[in-house]
């Protein structure tokens, strides 16, 4: 195995460790543990500043120019003292604005447009590429040094080529994980931190070894060096030493600006900053790191000069251990240098790639590949991410190309300073941009361009001369022989080193043009302010869709999901723009956002026609949104109407009117399936009654509404000239010229209950999918409301029925109750009356019999009279008791009748006979008249006799002495009508009915005692009723009274039914 293998293995192994660290960190972050959220990590990650220039170049510079390496670290040390003030403000500002790179910052400070960003990016790429080449050169050179082989000529044999490839893969994997550049790359940071620790550790180990192991201790080295006049001058500044005082100052200024503005530094400082307060720790920890890594540079350089012979000073760190045979230490040194180079290349490549894509790589890509534009709603985030990775590879390879072509002729420091001096061109624009209100975009552009031009002229072109690409006369005699324009002594300025000279001129031109153009062009204080987003209307979903196109769905959701639920469109737009800016760069983002808010024509030129497709769709979807909004309003109003009423017809009518108003349909109808299985038009607008009548039919597939109902799917006919189901349609068209219609099933809980229909007569119509959807939704809402209303109606009807039933029952009960009370009252009345009535005859009987017993009534006449009274009273008592018995029988329903065919005449005769004594008593004349044709009646003879006797007794009671009582019988309405007429005082009409009540007696005004039991009429009525007749009285006061009752006639058995009990 040769050395090459082992060194390559070491390099590859080291890279694998880096991959593992980065991968593990990213995994940890995904599971919620941020390993980088730590001020120490942040501080050490900033040490990406120390590249192989520091690791190897500082020693080389110290060996040749003495203390010249120091300003490169003193500048950063001083500027970091301003960490908690100046840098913190810068970081906060950038994070708030979503700035991810220096060109971004300039865009934000100087307003929209792409020219400034593009120029800045160009400057960056031109300035930084040599720096990347420098790192690759260091890797390749140390590799060759370590393996002892001669520099390879072919690309494939060049270690730095493979390193470049591996590093671009690493950067692509961990530095371009997401398109959104403001997202932190924790894996990459962790790797950088690891590398920083490795390079510091290795440097200290090697430094200590070289200082003490080779040099024999600090004092020994310095003693020897001071003794050597060649070396002694290294400890001084100014004439004779390598570094003059102006150089000292200008190098400090260069490095102070570079440590903030270099792409990798800006990236680490701003983008990878987790919390701005970490800057406080960084303000001393980062300088401490710089101090540590530099403290042994001078001793190592001196040892190299003292013992190294003709070794290349830049690589003392490796060659010194090698000369002593310590291969292991040399390997370690290689590793340190490797880590310094790799971290720089990785971060630089990522930062540059982001820059290139943003300013304005994305736009250019869009111009080159129309596929990016159409179809516009395609997700281009994956493509953009691959583009970013390709750019990373391109940047690294560009650096490699630089190294291959001209890098060999330069020292590490010279190349590094070339890049540094580019960075200072940004200082005026950034510094004044942040704190001067009079700044202007033109000023920034002009200043940067002028400074860059001077830089090219005074530094880059001379370096080409050094590489042998240009004729040396360019330097010595100036272009076209004009000495005033000699690049290194421009306008005769001399006495300064190259760097100071270049800085003086470039900054002079830069700031001069900046101020001149700023004063000339800035019209107002806010003229160059970042244009605010116009007030606009956009929904979250719309913006999410837009974001998804560029950054993928996950990121889009994350960005917009973090906002409050009801964020204002302004807020949403700002977040969207920030995210887009971070993915595509501020100018592209601004264009995209603007094109979503305006007609594409306005911005057509500026958009470079890149996102034309996008804006087109967005404008379209704005219309769609407005339409959608109106539709939602309709739905809302409909549901409002539906909730207003529970009456089916009212609510159907309201919704139909709403549809008519909102969508302009002239004819609308709602068909509901009735219980008899017919689809009937329940409610309609503008349909003929005739059609309503005939269209009531069971749902069949012969009609459109029928198939809509059966299939539960909307049926749309955009042009009725093409209908295929003409059934019924002619009837419909007769009344109104229908040209298009839509049926939607009314579905509630999976059941179709009807069909909602809209007809129009305005010509053929195209129903959009959205409309059909909306219409179906309306139908479903209607279905729900109808079902509810129906249920409500049923419930109401049921409750009505219940109420009625209850009321009826209550009335019945009340009636029964009053009846019971009445009966109760009557019963007590009855009892008292009965006892009273019974006592009267008993009193007579008792007193007369007592008289007869106690006194000797000798007078036979008298005695006879007394006994007669006793007999009469006893008879009356018997009659009364009989009546009572009859009554109780009747009441108990035990009255039995034995009806038979009867002639009235004998019945009349018997009754008159029985009552004869009464007539005789008052000398009353009785006239009986019976119609000759009167047929037989069908009645119980005894009961009929009883009724007649009662009536006659009554008549006798009220008849005057010697009056006449008429007894009549005649046919009337199929009954025998029997009447008893007296000539008494008559009965008041209001009492005609009451006399039939129990114990109701019409008292004779002349007599105080009642004339009967008061039960006769009651019993009579019960008997007549039972026999199927009626009894009533007619009378006028003073004119006598007539009592009528009817008795059914006898019918022959074959002649029909016979009244029986």
């Amino acid at each position: 195995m040769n050395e090459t293998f082992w060194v390559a293995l070491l390099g590859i192994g080291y890279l694998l460790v880096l991959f593992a660290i980065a991968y593990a960190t990213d995994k940890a972050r995904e599971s919620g543990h941020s390993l980088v959220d730590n001020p120490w990590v942040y501080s050490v990650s900033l040490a990406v500043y120390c590249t192989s220039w520091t690791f190897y170049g500082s020693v080389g510079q110290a060996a040749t120019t003495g203390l010249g390496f120091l300003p490169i670290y003193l500048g950063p040390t001083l500027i970091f003292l301003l960490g908690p003030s100046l840098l913190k403000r810068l970081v906060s500002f950038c994070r708030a604005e979503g700035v991810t790179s220096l060109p971004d910052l300039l865009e934000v400070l100087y307003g929209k447009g792409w020219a400034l960003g593009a120029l800045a990016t160009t400057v960056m790429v031109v300035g930084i590429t040599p720096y990347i080449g420098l790192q690759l050169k260091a890797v390749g050179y140390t590799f060759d040094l370590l393996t002892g082989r001669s520099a390879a000529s072919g690309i494939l044999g060049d270690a730095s080529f493979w390193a470049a490839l591996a590093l671009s893969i690493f950067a692509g994997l961990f530095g371009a994980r997401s398109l959104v550049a403001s997202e932190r790359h924790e894996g990459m940071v962790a790797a950088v931190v690891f590398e920083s620790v490795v390079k510091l550790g290795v440097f200290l180990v090697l430094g200590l070894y070289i200082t003490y192991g080779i040099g024999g201790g600090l004092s020994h080295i310095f003693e020897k060096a001071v003794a050597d006049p060649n070396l002694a001058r290294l400890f001084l500044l100014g004439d004779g030493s390598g570094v003059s005082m102006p150089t000292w100052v200008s190098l400090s200024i260069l490095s102070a600006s570079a440590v903030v503005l270099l792409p990798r530094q800006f990236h680490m400082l701003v983008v990878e900053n987790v919390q701005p307060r970490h800057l406080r720790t960084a303000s001393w920890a980062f300088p401490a790191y710089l101090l540590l890594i530099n403290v042994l540079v001078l001793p190592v350089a001196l040892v190299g000069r003292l013992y190294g012979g003709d070794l290349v000073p830049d690589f003392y760190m490796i060659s010194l251990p090698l000369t002593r045979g310590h291969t292991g230490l040399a390997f370690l040194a290689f590793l340190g240098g490797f880590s310094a180079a790799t971290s720089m290349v990785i971060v630089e490549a990522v930062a540059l790639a982001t820059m290139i894509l943003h300013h304005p790589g994305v736009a250019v890509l869009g111009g080159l590949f129309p596929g990016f534009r159409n179809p516009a709603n395609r997700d281009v985030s994956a493509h953009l991410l691959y583009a970013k990775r390709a750019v990373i590879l391109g940047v690294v390879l560009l650096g490699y190309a630089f190294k291959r072509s001209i890098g060999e002729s330069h020292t590490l420091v010279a190349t590094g300073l070339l890049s540094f001096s580019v960075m200072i061109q940004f200082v005026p624009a950034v510094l004044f941009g942040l704190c001067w209100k009079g700044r202007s975009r033109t000023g920034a552009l002009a200043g940067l361009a002028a400074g860059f031009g001077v830089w090219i002229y005074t530094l880059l072109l001379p370096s080409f001369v050094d590489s042998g690409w240009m004729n040396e006369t360019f330097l010595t005699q100036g272009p076209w022989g004009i000495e005033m324009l000699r690049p290194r002594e421009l306008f005769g300025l001399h006495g300064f080193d190259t760097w100071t000279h270049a800085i003086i001129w470039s900054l002079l031109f830069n700031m001069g043009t900046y101020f001149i153009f700023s004063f000339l062009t800035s019209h107002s204080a806010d003229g160059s302010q970042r244009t605010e987003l116009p007030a606009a209307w956009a929904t979250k979903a719309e913006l999410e869709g837009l974001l998804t196109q560029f950054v993928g769905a996950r990121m889009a959701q994350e960005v917009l999901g973090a906002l409050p639920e009801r964020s204002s469109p302004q807020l949403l737009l700002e977040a969207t723009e920030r995210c887009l800016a971070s993915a595509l760069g501020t100018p592209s983002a601004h264009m995209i956002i603007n094109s979503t808010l305006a007609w594409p024509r306005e911005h057509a030129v500026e958009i470079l026609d890149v996102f034309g497709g996008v804006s087109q769709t967005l404008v379209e979807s704005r219309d769609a949104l407005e339409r959608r909004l109106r539709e939602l309003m309709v739905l809302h109003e409909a549901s409002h109407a539906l909730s207003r009423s529970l009456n089916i017809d009212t609510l159907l009518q309201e919704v139909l009117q709403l549809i008519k108003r909102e969508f302009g349909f002239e004819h609308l109808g709602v068909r509901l399936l009735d219980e008899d299985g017919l689809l009937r038009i329940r409610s309609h607008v503008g349909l003929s009654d005739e059609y309503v009548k005939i269209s009531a039919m069971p749902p069949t597939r012969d009609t459109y509404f029928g198939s809509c109902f059966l299939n539960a799917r909307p049926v749309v006919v955009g042009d009725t000239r093409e209908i295929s189901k003409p059934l019924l349609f002619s009837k419909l068209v007769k009344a109104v010229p229908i040209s298009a219609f839509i049926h939607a099933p009314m579905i509630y809980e999976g059941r179709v209950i009807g069909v909602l229909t809209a007809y129009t007569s305005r010509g053929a119509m195209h129903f959009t999918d959205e409309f059909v959807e909306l219409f179906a939704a309306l139908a479903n809402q209607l279905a729900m409301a109808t079902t509810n209303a129906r249920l409500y109606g049923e419930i109401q009807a049921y409750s009505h029925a219940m109420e009625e039933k209850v009321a009826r029952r209550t009335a019945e009960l009340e009636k029964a109750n009053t009846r019971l009370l009445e009966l109760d009252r009557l019963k007590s009345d009855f009892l008292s009356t009965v006892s009273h009535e019974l006592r009267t005859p008993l009193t007579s009987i008792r007193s007369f019999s007592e008289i007869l017993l106690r006194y000797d009534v000798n007078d036979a006449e008298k005695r006879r009279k007394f006994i007669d009274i006793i007999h009469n009273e006893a008879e009356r008592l018997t009659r009364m008791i009989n009546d009572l018995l009859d009554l109780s029988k009747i009441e108990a329903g035990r009255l039995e009748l034995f009806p038979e065919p009867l002639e009235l005449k004998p019945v009349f005769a018997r009754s008159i006979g029985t009552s004869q004594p009464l007539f005789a008593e008052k000398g009353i004349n009785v006239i009986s008249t019976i119609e000759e044709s009167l047929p037989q009646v069908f009645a119980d003879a005894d009961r009929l006799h009883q009724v007649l006797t009662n009536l006659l007794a009554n008549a006798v009671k009220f008849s005057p002495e010697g009056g006449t009582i008429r007894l009549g019988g005649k046919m009337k309405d199929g009954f025998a009508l029997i009447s008893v007429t007296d000539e008494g005082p008559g009965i008041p009409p209001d009492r005609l009915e009451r006399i039939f009540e129990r114990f109701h007696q019409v008292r004779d005004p002349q007599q105080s005692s009642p004339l009967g039991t008061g039960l006769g009429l009651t019993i009579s009525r019960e008997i007549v009723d039972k026999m199927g007749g009626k009894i009533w009285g007619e009378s006028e006061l003073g004119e006598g009274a007539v009592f009528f009752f009817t008795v059914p006639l006898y019918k022959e058995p074959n002649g029909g039914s016979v009244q029986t009990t």
Partner: protein
Amino acid sequence: MTKSSRRLAALFVIGIVALYPPLLEAFNRPASFLGIPILPLYLFSAWGALVLVSWILSRGDTP
């Protein structure tokens, strides 16, 4: 601006005065102290002091 950041800014000014001419010229002479040339010794000491003081100052007010 917090107290410590103002103090650090003051330290920044002190650093500029200390590390650059004209004050630097005072140490820009061929002499040694404890066997170490005076300019590098001064520069590294000043640097170390700056770091040390800034460390102390930034601990001044707890976050």
